[in-house]
Every structure is written in structure tokens, then in C-alpha cells.
């Protein structure tokens, strides 16, 4: 089965979680507003009206609540979800609280596969390597469990983990992710990164054809490493599909300028855009339509 096509306009979830790279205070204010998950569903409904086909959603503690609220909203029946997992802050905090060994113990001892693993580990059998892969696949299952009742065109490996694997040279992780997401979820495997050219090279070296990468791409150049020019050159090779994120650089550049910039790269056809007010959603939709020739968004007014 072919994965569902990616939506051109995907709503970002940072605002719902209190993440704002420009201002923590603004982020906190937004988090308070979205304490009620029905507020999230209302913004999704507005985003749907202005052409967003889905929501990028990290597997943070409140993901289940948000998904329930979205399912309860009749106007969001076909609204797609793009999981971005794992929610890295959860694991950073857990590794701070329990240490990395403690965190690994926790990951590999939670869920129904615990007994099996414990038996294998005690027996010291020779196939331990294979078993760790199975256990990690089970951990991904657990992480994705709340998303299962939604259409999932793509599942992204969070940039915190993808870039860690990139830095350590653990390219097996990329092949593992690619195989798992395609086989088990019939979805497009995606890779988050703040190191676009290096990630594209590493995925190509891992044998992945035209991989889907989610990375910052903006006129401000924020988080475009090692340089904006290098990221632009990488995009122009057309060797991967880019889901452009942070195109408004957390509100530090004017939307007109932001869309004018991305429009210079015709191979970029998919965008994650965060907005929580109707005015901003309408503005972003209009700009997407004006600047991005060939990107069809479906506005349901």
C-alpha cells in the first residue's frame, strides 16, 4: 500500500505545547490557553478551513488528549496527523531523572514485551542484537499507540534523536526507522534535523531513496546549519523531499518575506506552519496561495 500523499500545509503543534523559540514567555502564555484540549481542536478546525490538511504532533504527555478532542470534532474527520516522535523533552527529563541506563531500563521494561525481554536477557542468548531491535520497535508502537485511529501519511523521527544518530554515525537507526514505518504503519518515514545537508548525505549513504526530511528553512536562516547557502544548495539537488519548518522563524520575520523566500525553491512543496489565530491562519493561507505556484491548498470557507 502506498503511503498517503503529504499535505502541502500542515499545522505545527509548538504553540499548543508552549514552545516558542523566540520567547519563552509567549510560549507559556500559549500553553495556558491550550490547557483545554478543545481549544486545540478549535484551532485545527480553523486551520482546516484555511487549507491545512493535518497536524504535526509530538508524542508529549498531552498528545492523547489533543487526539481525543480532534476525534470528537466532526469537522476534523479527515484531518490527518503527522506524529513527530519521540517527544524529546520527555526523554531528556527522564534521562536527567533516572540516568541513561535507568531510561533504557524503563524503555525496555515497559509494556507487554517486558517478560519476553527479561527472559532473553537472563538467558544471555546470542540474538540479543536482533532482540533490541524488536524491543525498540515495540517502544515505537507504544509511542504511536494514541495515533492509531488517525490517518498517518508520515511518521517523523524527532530531530533530537535523528541528529544524535547522525552525529554518532549510527546510520543503522535510519534504515531501522525507514523499514519499520513503511512496513508496519504503511506511512512515509520522515527524519527531523537541524543539519539538513549532512542528514541528506547520511540518508543517501544509508541507501534511502528520496527520503522525506523535515528541517528549518527560512529567510532568517535560523537553525539552517552549517549555513543557509549550504541548506539551499542541498534543497536544489532535489535528492530528498523537504517538509519545510520554522519558515516564519518563530515570528521574527514578516510572513510576506517568509513565503517570498520559500517560493524561490520550487522543489519545496510542503510546509509546517504554526498559527493559532484565525487572522494568522487566513494570512498564511493567502500567502501560500499567492507565492507557491503549484502548491494546491484546499480552503473550506
Amino acid at each position, binding site marked *: 500500500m502506498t503511503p498517503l500523499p503529504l499535505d502541502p500545509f500542515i499545522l505545527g503543534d509548538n504553540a499548543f505545547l508552549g514552545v516558542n523559540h523566540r520567547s*519563552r514567555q509567549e510560549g507559556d502564555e500559549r500553553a495556558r490557553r491550550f490547557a483545554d484540549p478543545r481549544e486545540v481542536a478549535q484551532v485545527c478546525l480553523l486551520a482546516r478551513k484555511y487549507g491545512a490538511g493535518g497536524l504535526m504532533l509530538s508524542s508529549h504527555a498531552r498528545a492523547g488528549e489533543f487526539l481525543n478532542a480532534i476525534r470528537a470534532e466532526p469537522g476534523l474527520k479527515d484531518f490527518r496527523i503527522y506524529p513527530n516522535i519521540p517527544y524529546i523533552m520527555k526523554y531528556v*527529563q527522564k534521562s536527567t531523572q533516572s540516568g541513561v541506563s535507568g531510561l*533504557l531500563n524503563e524503555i525496555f521494561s515497559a509494556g507487554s514485551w517486558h517478560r519476553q525481554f527479561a527472559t532473553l536477557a537472563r538467558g544471555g542468548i546470542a540474538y540479543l542484537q536482533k532482540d533490541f531491535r524488536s524491543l525498540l520497535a515495540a517502544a515505537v508502537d507504544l509511542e504511536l499507540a494514541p495515533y492509531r485511529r488517525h490517518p498517518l501519511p508520515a511518521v517523523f523521527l524527532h530531530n533530537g534523536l535523528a541528529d544524535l544518530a547522525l*552525529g554518532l554515525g549510527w546510520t*543503522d537507526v535510519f534504515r531501522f526507522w525507514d523499514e519499520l514505518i513503511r512496513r508496519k504503519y504503511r506511512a512515509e518515514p520522515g527524519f527531523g534535523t537541524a543539519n539538513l545537508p549532512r542528514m541528506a548525505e547520511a540518508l543517501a549513504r544509508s541507501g534511502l531513496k528520496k527520503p522525506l526530511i523535515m528541517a528549518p528553512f527560512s529567510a532568517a536562516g535560523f537553525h539552517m546549519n*552549517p549555513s543557509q547557502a549550504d541548506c539551499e544548495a542541498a534543497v536544489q539537488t532535489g535528492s530528498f523531499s523537504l517538509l519545510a519548518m520554522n519558515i516564519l522563524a518563530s515570528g*521574527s520575520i514578516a510572513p510576506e518575506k517568509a513565503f517570498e523566500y520559500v517560493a524561490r525553491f520550487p522543489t519545496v512543496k510542503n510546509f509546517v506552519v504554526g498559527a493559532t489565530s484565525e487572522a494568522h491562519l487566513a494570512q498564511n493561507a493567502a500567502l501560500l496561495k499567492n507565492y507557491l505556484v503549484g502548491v494546491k491548498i484546499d480552503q473550506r470557507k
Partner: protein
Amino acid sequence: MKALVIGFGKMGMLHAATLRMMPDISEVIIAETSPLIHRVIRTFAPDAHIVTDYREAFDDAAVQCAVIATPTASHAPIFQTLAPRLQSIFVEKPFAAGLADATSAISALPPKGSSAVMVGHCLRYSPIFVEAKRLIDAGVVGELTGFQATVFSSDVLKPARSWRFKGAAAGGGVLLDLGSHLVDMTRYFFGTPDRLTGRIRAIVSQDTEDAFESEWFYPNFSGKLEGSWSKPDCRKATLQIRVMGRQGQMTVTDDAVEVQIDSPAAGLPAGKTRLPITALEGPTAFELAGPLYTHQMEAWLRAVNGATLRANTLEENLINLDLIDHIRNSSGQSVRPAVTV
């Protein structure tokens, strides 16, 4: 050259990945005692060079530098073992559990010859804090009248299991952990105080402090430091320094510098100016958990190659540890720091 990373916890992982991306480094050898971590590494990186005891890497002449990213109480003994073999050492902050440990550790460095010892106070490589320091030095708020420096997190809301929260392995509590960042940054901004007071207290932990307070006195002003890792509702650790002066005030957090001044100063107009991280931060060779970690590693490797280290030096960190010892032990009494520049 090859780099040895000792300890593959949260910070060891980050430094190993960052170092591996540096053009000067041909290989990163990981030293880790946990068999579970060995197995996970072997699963996804069968060719990774991993040893159980860091001393196993000593015979390899290509190993020219090492990172210590183990629990704090082990920093000093590991440093002491490493120093006769390697003088290019990056130690995750804090350098040691206290000044006495640090002093005995550095006695193992050869008396002659160069060394590149750096301590991982990564905020020194954040453009926000560098810009804030520039503005303070340029007199943006006029003559200083005081400051308030705080660091809060929600890491310990119930008794925790990690070594970080156990007095024996960590060598201390929040003062040594998050507090060492605050002490370093406050000293970076204002210098070493003439006198200080301090208090520590437990909130949920059994054998270490969960909160601290301190007041630092300078000839013409004073300021307060406060920290806790048992503060509810912090999505992540938050460090903030408010600087007050006769011409206005400045607030520094990890996402912005905000200045409110009566008249133009240091290139800023009168009124309120906000300099967000998005305006100050440029690209980096490799980004993992923020560009500051890469900038920090680059600075250290420049020092390994002979450049002068400009921040996070051993000398500075001896002062930091002396201040931390005083905060911990002063019981509210005013004391004078012993180590000066």
C-alpha cells in the same frame, strides 16, 4: 587525532556526537561501564569503538584529548588518572564536587607544558549571554545598582533515582548542578564578589539540597541568587538574570535579552529593546541540542591545538567552586571568598 569520551550519559552522548562531527577528530572512543549501554550501542553501531575502562584507551597514541562526562563526584579522581597521560581534558560542569577535590585533581597535571583544560559551562557560548555581558560592560543600564539571578527546574518533584540527585555520586545537590551555571554566569557578568552569604535547604531529597539562596556584595551594589530544581511547572530549566542600573534595567534569559533604558546607550535606543535568540544566533557546523555545545567544543579543540582558552578555564572554575563551597557552608553568615583571579 582521536578523542576519548568517558561516560555515555546524556552529556557524554551529546559531546561524543558533536566531537565526531569535528574535522580535527578522526575517531571518538567511548568509555562506559554500563553493560546495557554497551549492548544498545552494539545493536546500532556494530563498529563503534567502546571500552569499559577508559584506561584501555591510554595505549593508543592517537588519543590526544578526553571528555569527562561521568557523575560529578568521579570527575576529580578520573582527572587525576588522566592528567599524567593527557593534558587536553574537557570536564563537564561542575569541575569537581568542591574546591578541595579540584585542587587535588589538578595537582596531577605536569608542572611544565601546556594544557587545555576546559569546564563545560555551555552558556558562555550562548550569543544571548555574550551579548548581555557586552551590554553590561558598555554601561547600557548605567552604574549598576543590583541584580537578581535565578535558576529553576522541575527535575526533582519527588525523590529521584539518578546519580544527579544523590549527594554521594553528585557531590552535592542543585547548587552544584544547576546552581554552578548560575554562579558562573553571575561571576561572568559582575566579577567575583567581595563577600557573600548563602543558605541551602532540602525540599524532597533525603541527602542533598533542593534549593539555595545567596547574596553577593560588591563595593557599590549587591545582588541575590536563588535556585531550585523542585519548582513545579517548569517545562525545562530556566535561568534568568535581571540587572538593575541607574539608567534602566536588563533581563537576560536563554531566549532573549530585554533592555529598558532611559536614554540611548551601547548602541541601543531609549525605551524597550528586545533582542531574541533568533536575531543573535548564527549557524553552526553541526547542531545538537543548540549551537552553543558545538561552539564550546570548537573553542576547546582550538585550545587543544594551541590557542589560548578564553572562557571556562580551570582558574575560573576554581573560583566558582570556592564560591559554591561558601554558599553551601556559610549558613547565612557573610564570608569572603578565598580564591581570587
